[in-house]
């Protein structure tokens, strides 16, 4: 277990967070390049739109997996959670932008109509809207300023996850294997969160010891 919780020398740690932003944005940049140079198949706009949506789900799952990974396996990636959360937001925003600009060609009335009439789009919009306050408060200043309210505010991410999962599940004509896997993971992570407070109070002492052990081992 300890092996997974590798720790970088201190001076590399903040660089590794920036590297995560760069690597995280690469899939979008590369696919945008493919689309712009006509290498994205017959329906490039739809392909790009769905690609960005799928990566939003992937980063959302990674973000939610950070604390269970620490609790259950002792892998401590807390340092990267903010970057993962913000990448989720950036991908959601790009997903929406492509829908609005490239897909609907900025036809605002069409977009408003879609949002008001179609539950599947409503869930997606709700998730994006709730991500905005989370993204705006993802900085040290807000954490200090908001104190315990920051934690309460950021529990919204579980509502975002549920809405995102519904949006994803409703988006196609039939559910494929891929959707079962992603939606299943999100459900597991939400369930874990509702179970964790109890589990934690039982294990508090153990967890602390293990972390101390980890610290010594590294």
């Amino acid at each position, binding site marked *: 277990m300890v092996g997974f919780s590798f720790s970088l020398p201190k001076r590399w740690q903040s660089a590794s967070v920036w590297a995560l932003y760069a690597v995280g944005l690469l899939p979008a940049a590369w696919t945008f390049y493919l689309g712009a140079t006509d290498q*994205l198949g017959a329906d490039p706009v739809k392909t790009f739109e769905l690609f960005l949506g799928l990566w939003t789900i992937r980063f959302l799952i990674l973000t939610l997996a950070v604390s269970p990974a620490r609790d259950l396996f002792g892998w401590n990636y807390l340092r990267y959670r903010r970057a993962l959360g913000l990448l989720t937001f950036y991908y959601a925003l790009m997903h929406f932008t492509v829908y609005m600009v490239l897909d609907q060609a900025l036809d605002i009335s069409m977009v408003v*109509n879609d949002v008001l009439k179609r539950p*599947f789009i409503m869930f997606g919009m709700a998730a994006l809207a709730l991500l905005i306050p989370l993204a705006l408060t993802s900085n040290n200043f807000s954490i200090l300023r908001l104190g315990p309210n920051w934690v309460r505010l950021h529990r919204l991410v579980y509502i975002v996850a549920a809405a995102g999962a519904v949006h994803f599940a409703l988006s196609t004509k039939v559910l494929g294997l891929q959707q079962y896997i992603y939606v299943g993971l999100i459900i597991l992570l939400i369930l874990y969160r509702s179970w964790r407070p109890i589990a934690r109070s039982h294990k508090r002492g153990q967890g602390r010891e293990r972390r101390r052990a980890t610290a010594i081992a590294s």
Partner: protein
Amino acid sequence: MPAYRPPKIASSEITPQQLYLRRREFLGAATLGAMALYGASKASAAALSVIESKYTVDEKTTPLKDVTTYNNFYEFGLDKGDPAALSGDFKPLPWTVKVDGMVNKPGTFDVEALMKEFPIESRTYRMRCVEAWSMVIPWDGLPLASLLNKVEPLGSAKYVAFETVVRPDEMPGQKGIFQSLDWPYVEGLRLDEARHPLTLLAVGLYGETLPNQNGAPIRLVVPWKYGFKGIKSIVRITLTDKEPKNTWQVTNPQEYGFYANVNPEVDHPRWSQATERRIGESGFFGASRHPTLPFNGYADEVASLYSGMDLRKNF
């Protein structure tokens, strides 16, 4: 029934003749990259001898590469690229279609024999998918009415039911734990729709036999209906007096009906049907949304089939 008056547009206005004659060369160059992907099915494509027909549209045809790499054919997988990538093992020939039910002369017909018996017409139709994208495809085929006349439907027959082949060994989408749909894929038409001169049994596109991913060796094309009505790789056609089930209606009756006529006024519950994205037209930028036309632009020919019907209820 009023006589069909085609729009007066020569096919040469759509594609200059010298380009049309060089189409293989051009398409060959354009599709080199994609060849590896669907090489197996390309290899089996054979040139058809076709006659021109009066049925065409005044719009640019969708490039062959897009027509053959962007497909919904769940028997091969859910992804639009799956049918092209995963249909290499499918054997479209030899092939027979069984025609039975309420007919005087039921029979089992060899597709290659049908292609010799009936003239194969080249017809360019708009194709509108229920997912709000569209193409313009030069099909080659025979009117379904020709085959129906041959088997002589009984007076009591009111509907025509169609069935796709089931071959899990050749069609990976029919194999495994997660089955997207119940097989076989089934579709249906009212007999008057089936006999309408626009309704085509396609055996080719762009002058060559159908690639596997497009429903080889024989498929239905009903241009005024959403694409899912165009059942592929047909093995059975049954005349009946009851409205047949169709796969998508069975799978999700809230979203898909029996008629599935293209109608910009009746939205899909999850998206608008007022406009469509024309595949292969503009690439990434300057999204090419076209207004969707009632009956996909074939209202003059087919609207009378539905006079007096509530098209919101019979979607």
